[in-house]
């Protein structure tokens, strides 16, 4: 299925917009049924780390 997604050219960032900002938000049973705020924080941290990593890569280029 993952391959089908890439073939259809769905950009990860557009998927994340929807999966992290959209969708039904219910509190599940486990702490992982992440409350709004937590998930946004998690995703932001992931995205920021990625940007910083990309920047470092650019910085290392001659």
């Amino acid at each position: 299925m993952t391959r089908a997604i890439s073939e259809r050219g769905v950009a990860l960032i557009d998927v994340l917009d929807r999966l992290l900002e959209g969708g039904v938000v219910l509190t599940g049973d486990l702490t992982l049924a992440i409350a709004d705020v937590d998930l946004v924080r998690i995703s932001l941290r992931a995205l920021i780390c990625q940007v910083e990593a990309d920047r470092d890569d650019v910085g290392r280029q001659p």
Partner: protein
Amino acid sequence: MTASRYVYAIGRALEPADLAGLVGIDGAEVHPIAHRDLVAVVSAAPADEAALRARLERLDELAVVAEAHHAVVAAVATQTVVVPFRLATIYRDEQRVGEVLHERYAEFSALLDRLTGTVEVGVKLYAEDRAPAPVTPSASGRAYLQQLSQRHRRRDEKWQHAAAAVERVDSSLGALALDRSRHRPQAAQLLGVAGDNVLNAAYLVPAGRLTEFTDLAHRLARDEPALRLEVTGPWAPYSFTEPDHGDRS
């Protein structure tokens, strides 16, 4: 395998055979949990909760989980109306999922009614990124300041122009759509594309008018030379799952 269940979406009129062969998070088999005419689309949740949380903090792992979630939702959405769930909603066992369907039966039924026969279309607009003229180092401090202020003025004008153009496009598209919702503009450095993302919107469109809608979007964008258009989808209606969804923009 665990008893706990990861919920991807809720749908209607789904038979177990409709989900045959579909796999979700970590390759877990997807199966239905039914309550009256509602069906929760679930799979076994990853066993280690702490490990899953840690995975969601790494972009590469977040991508794997998000794509698995999205793939299930997209596959089910081709067969029936669905209400997608947000990433990582997990219940202790199948019985708890059934209880949630029971408790929120009216809410989910109303949402499914509203979303039947619709698709979500993503529309992104970018303001053309014309690099500002470089400020030439000048012997005259006054000339330098003038150049700087001209540059700021041009940038302000560019933004005002883009904002007005976005409003024109959004209101025309909104007139054809059943509903609309705005996501946060995407950060330029994450996109790797030219221009600033000035509109990141989703429109709920009758499935039968999808072509008409995308044609209109392209036509409107052609009339706005300051903007570049990107249309995504059709998506399952992720952005329209609030019970009393109004215009969130």
